[in-house]
Each structure stands twice: as structure tokens, then as C-alpha cells.
């Protein structure tokens, strides 16, 4: 049993949960974007890291890392584009 891999997988699952809770609880598009881009990406990072440790093959690890980089790039760009569209369309950020 590889405890480091297991801990990494658990952390990944935790961040996924946090992302979804944020998506459901946060008050407006902009803050929901915060929850999704940050929590889910890092959750995926921990999960893939755990899987890579488990497999133990450097090539598979590198492939998982490339996939993670792509997800990161895609979701950061998407979140910027959606946030911008919301602002330009006149969706005011929620204020307390």
C-alpha cells in the first residue's frame, strides 16, 4: 500500500468536493468561476499525481502531467472568457 499515493488521491477527491460545493453555494458567476478553476484543477492535479505514483512508470506520469497542463490551460482561458462575457453583458458581480 502506497500511503503517499493514497493521501494524494484523497486530497484530490476532497478538492473536487470543495469545487462542487462552491459551484452550488457561491452567489454569482464570477465567484463560482473561482471555485471551479482553482479547486477542480488542483483536485485533478493531486488525483493524477496519486495515480502516477501508483503506476510508477515515468512515461505514464509524463502523459498525465501533459494532460493536467492542458486542462489547466483550457480551464484558465475558459474562465477568463466567461468572466469577460459576463462583465461585458452587464452581469454585475455580486456584492454583500
Amino acid at each position, binding site marked *: 500500500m502506497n500511503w503517499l499515493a493514497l493521501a494524494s488521491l484523497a486530497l484530490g477527491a476532497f478538492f473536487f468536493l470543495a469545487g462542487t460545493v462552491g459551484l452550488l453555494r457561491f452567489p454569482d458567476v464570477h465567484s463560482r468561476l473561482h471555485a471551479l*478553476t482553482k479547486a477542480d484543477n488542483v483536485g485533478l492535479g493531486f488525483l493524477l499525481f496519486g495515480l502516477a505514483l501508483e503506476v510508477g512508470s515515468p512515461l505514464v506520469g509524463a502523459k498525465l502531467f501533459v494532460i493536467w497542463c492542458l486542462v*489547466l490551460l483550457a480551464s484558465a482561458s475558459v474562465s477568463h472568457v466567461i468572466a469577460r462575457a459576463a462583465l461585458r453583458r452587464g452581469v454585475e458581480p*455580486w456584492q454583500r
Partner: protein
Amino acid sequence: MPAVSSAVLRAGAFRIALYALLWGILAGFEPGSWFLGAPAVLLAAWLSLQLASPVPFRPWPVLVFVAFFIGRSVSGAVDVARRALAPRLRLAPALVVYQTSLPAGLPRVLFLNSISLTPGTLSADIRDDTVWVHVLDENGDHEQALSGLEGRLARVFPQ
């Protein structure tokens, strides 16, 4: 033969090496995979030179930035998780305006994307040199965090 500047040559060689590595990682390093892989890598390198002019960067600060970035995005996720799972939501969102001095193109794109992955900030719009940043908590020192991030990127791309 048209004169090709050494900067373009260097960038071309670098991109070919990078794409070949990427191909190997994605499709496998077996000899058979290169029948398709070699033309694809060359085509991709040529296309990327057509689409984006070479951007000089320093290799060592890139590694420093990657390490810094991974650390920041983990703490960003922890921050969001704390806010999402707290019994009472403690959010005080606001829009913050920041003037960037990074050159347009790759450095600026990287800046906007890293803003979205560091704690409490999300890049929401850009017009010329002005970046609109949505923050989860208006009480933080975002000016300092943003200029720190910008400084690290400026070290990667010498002007």
C-alpha cells in the same frame, strides 16, 4: 535562399525538440510511431512559427516560476475550499483594476491565466494595459500579490 535570423532558427529548433518530446509522451517512443510523428512534429513547428513569432525566455526563471505557480495554485484551492465549506459564506467580492506593463502576447496571456489560478483572484477583462480582476475578498492586498506575480513573469521574459 531567404535570410533566416538566428532567433527564428533557435526558436524553430527549440519547438521541434519540444513537440517531438510531446509526441513521444502522448503517442509513445516506439520507432513505428515516428512515421506519423516526424511529419506531424515538423508541420506543427512550422505552423507555430507562422502563427507566433519567437519569444525569447530564460530557462532558469521558468523553473522557478513553475514551482512558485504550483505552490500558489494549491494555496488558491485551499482558500476556495475553506470559503466553500465554511458554515457561513464569507465573501466580499469586488472588481479591482490593475495596470500591467508586460508586453502583449505570450507573457500577458500567461499573466492572465496565472491570475485566475492564484488565491482569491480571477482575471475578468483586459483592455489595452488595464486588467480587471475579480477578487473574492476585497480586504486582501491584491496589488502586492499581482505585482509579485507580474515581476516573476517579467524575469522569465527579458525585455
